[in-house]
């Protein structure tokens, strides 16, 4: 079913790495919100509602929206919080605009690295009934999925290495100044240190608006939301088919149906996929119908999915390049929006008419979402 009112992205700021420690978390959030408003060319008075997303355990605050509400302009304003995933803030914001009751929404997410152990904080996400005793953090869950995928598809390892190499090369080109300097992730067999990077502090914000607001303000550089779908896998890893991504397939079906996409492999000028690991990226290719698994190795190595190929994936360099853990999903949406708006800087692809954003998060990509964005309101 379609949206009553079609939202578009009118402003974005992506802050994939914030190394300085001279701003408190709240000040960092303030800076991010201000940048997004400036990029949209609006003031806070133009904002009808706000949705934020952050993880209480990463933040060290029991209710992350509380102290963050001031910095994002929440005083005397309608503000809600979706701590399940950064991309969920975008989804709720888009739904609110779609009702016709809100002309604009500011969406903000952040991911600090102030906890002594991200892995420890993540482990608290396991249930105390059965799984808490296991060393199960997000990377471990990804590793379990990766090993399942390798067993099901013997060429997956070679394809994963090629995907990582692609994203690394994209990352070098995307962020030349200053060049990317991150730490490799740990070894969690079969995930190699070269396949992930250590968490960094980051933040992202976007402004959504309804068509009448856009027309009224004469805004030109906007990215229209042509379709959106999201879904979740079940709770326990053991209940899931870890060799595929059924929730993402469901989400993609919903997004493609609304956007009128019948041949996904050829419908987009580019895609941004949440590569929590290269294996997650491969599974996303399949679930999004961009590249079936029989072609993973071939297309990962022959340049089809790299810059210059038929469907460049992760020109931003992906999560492998910058890993602000909680924000990585929403950043993919922002990257695609920026590509359509011509604001992607060093990694801009010329003439992007339509792009696909994939956002995934949680243990082995439990939450999945797909957004189709385009320069035109209709395909």
């Amino acid at each position: 079913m379609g949206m009553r009112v079609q939202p578009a992205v009118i402003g974005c700021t992506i802050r994939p790495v914030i190394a300085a420690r001279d701003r408190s978390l709240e000040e960092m959030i303030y800076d991010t919100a201000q940048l997004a408003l400036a990029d949209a060319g609006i003031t806070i008075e133009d904002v009808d509602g706000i949705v934020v997303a952050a993880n209480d355990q990463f933040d060290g605050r029991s209710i992350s929206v509380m102290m963050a509400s001031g910095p994002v302009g929440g005083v005397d304003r309608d503000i809600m919080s979706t701590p399940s995933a950064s991309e969920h803030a975008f989804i709720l914001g888009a739904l609110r605009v779609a009702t016709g009751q809100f002309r604009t929404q500011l969406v903000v997410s952040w991911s600090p690295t102030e906890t002594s152990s991200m892995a420890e904080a993540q482990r608290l996400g396991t249930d105390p009934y059965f799984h808490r005793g296991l060393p199960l953090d997000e990377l471990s869950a990804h590793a379990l999925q990766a090993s399942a995928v390798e067993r099901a598809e013997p060429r997956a390892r070679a394809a994963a290495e090629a995907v990582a190499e692609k994203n690394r090369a994209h990352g070098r080109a995307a962020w030349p100044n200053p060049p990317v300097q991150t730490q490799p992730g740990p070894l969690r067999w079969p995930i190699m240190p070269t396949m992930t990077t250590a968490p960094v502090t980051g933040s992202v914000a976007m402004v959504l608006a309804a068509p009448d607001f856009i027309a009224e303000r004469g805004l030109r550089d906007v990215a229209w939301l042509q379709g959106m779908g999201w879904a979740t896998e079940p709770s326990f890893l053991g209940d899931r088919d870890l060799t595929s991504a059924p929730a993402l397939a469901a989400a993609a079906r919903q997004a493609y149906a609304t956007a009128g996409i019948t041949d996904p492999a050829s419908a987009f000028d580019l895609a941004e996929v949440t590569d929590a690991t290269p294996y997650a990226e491969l599974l996303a290719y399949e679930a999004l119908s961009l590249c079936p698994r029989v072609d993973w190795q071939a297309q990962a190595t022959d340049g089809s999915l790299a810059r210059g190929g038929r469907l460049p994936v992760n020109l931003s360099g992906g999560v492998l390049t910058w890993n602000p853990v909680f924000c990585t999903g929403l950043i993919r949406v922002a990257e695609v929006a920026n590509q359509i708006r011509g604001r992607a800087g060093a990694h801009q692809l010329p003439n992007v008419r339509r792009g696909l954003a994939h956002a995934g998060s949680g243990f082995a990509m439990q939450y999945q979402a797909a957004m189709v964005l385009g320069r035109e309101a209709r395909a």
Partner: protein
Amino acid sequence: MELLERQEVWNITYHHALGETASWFYTRIRDEAAIYGRRCSKTGRVLVPPRSFSDETLLPTTDWVKVGPGGRIEAFTMVYEKFNNLPDPPYAFGYVLLDGADTALGGYFKGIDLTDPQAAAAKLKIGTRVVATFAPERKGEMLDFWFELAAYNCVHEVAEG
């Protein structure tokens, strides 16, 4: 039916960046035994504790303004119940509008007999004058200071007989 239980404890350490504004505020407490607020550029209101921007105007704050040490009680309570990881009761704390500030700052009230709640509430009533009092050795944190009733109040009571 045998029902089992499992104990879990959350224990995570954080290192929170305070930022320049809060950091400077604490260095003044530590080195000068003084409390400062920041002025909102649009309204001129002096915000205490200080922040680098006002959440009402979303504009950066400008200059530092020394406030107190005198002030008036804006809100208080006395706690008589023990909660895990919080101090042993009884204790009194609340918010004080320091002289020169437009917003109130939180802190403990010390030196008041809390055995009779009604009497203590009368002593701490809104509007009571207090003084920010500093520890002789300070680390640069909120617990370096607290509030005590100003001598003025005691004199006033004596005069009333």
